[in-house]
């Protein structure tokens, strides 16, 4: 379980260049838990890998990435809400 990594460590962990991670953060596609110190947790790392895969595997361009992330987040939220409210 990853608790908190600096960008350098996150780059090493994910095998993704630091500048690319920084770009994802500046684009606000990834929002670090600690915005001041820019430390990333497991959620952020998995999201970074997902964004990279969207671009590399599926050829998704920069304009479409925030739309896809938005939809994924909404779906995840709705799935979670559905489970909590209706699946007891």
């Amino acid at each position: 379980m990853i608790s908190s990594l600096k960008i350098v460590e996150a780059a090493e962990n994910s095998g993704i260049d630091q500048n690319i991670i920084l770009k994802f953060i500046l684009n606000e596609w990834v929002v670090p838990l600690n915005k001041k110190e820019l430390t990333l947790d497991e959620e952020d790392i998995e999201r970074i890998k997902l964004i990279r895969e969207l671009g590399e595997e599926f050829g998704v361009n920069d304009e479409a990435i925030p739309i896809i992330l938005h939809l994924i987040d909404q779906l995840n939220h709705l799935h979670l809400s559905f489970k909590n409210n209706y699946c007891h």
Partner: protein
Amino acid sequence: MKNPYKILGVKETASLDEIKKAYRTLAKKHHPDLNPSNKTNEAKFKEISHAYDQIGTNEARTKFDQGEPGEENSKQQWSSFYNTQQNAGRYANSYADQFGDDEFFENLFHGAHQKRRAQNQDINYLMDLTLEEAVLGVEKVITLANGKNLKVKIPPGITSGTKLRFAGHGLTENSGPPGNAYIMINVLPKAGYIVQGHDIETELPISFMEALLGAEIEVPTLYGSVNLQIPPNVSTGSKLRIKGKGIITNTDVGSQIVKIKVVLPKKSDPELLKAIKSWNGKYDYNPRGEK
């Protein structure tokens, strides 16, 4: 998707025994039990194990070589992120405030719906950026049609033709939802810098002596100057690569390609001419004869 051969550090032609040996060596090195203090080791160990699963047996290797694992890996990556969101994930929960769960599900199950009002018009703006701003990213303020200022954060690596959408910043003339503002990016050319895909090409004039003997020359890049080592015997047109000084994309960072241009002195030095003439007689040097 990472290449399992690269992760294990073996050639694609390696035998199963070689793959197994490489896996064992790396697994030993990165095993979390041996390095409990190193946070990145666990992930590395998982990566090595997964790579071995992909090519460690004849059957798995054939599947990978035929391209089947791509799909498997994609599913794995999607589910990895999904799993992080299933216990109060920050990203998924950022939507809780936008639509209350109860209200959403009530609407969903009871068929409640509202009449949609006509949305106001969108407005398009054009924003010129210098090459530096486009490559490195910048924050700019634009004045909208309604007189309000909008802070626009330009991410690094943006290209001409990119359209940024700012929801709700369009016209608000009628009672419907406000339109959106769209900002079209136009990257202005910079003299001496040619963008080629993810790379940036520049020209570097060097002297005859520097071309012959090699040199260390300070070269400007969009990220600041760097010292470039020029090897001896370079010619006009030779290209040297400075990695990581090009355009940032989601998958890599391009390079600056430095194209050498050998410039001869405007006035010839008699001593040099004499030396060259003497040298010319001694050596058989014909660049047109080289293959």
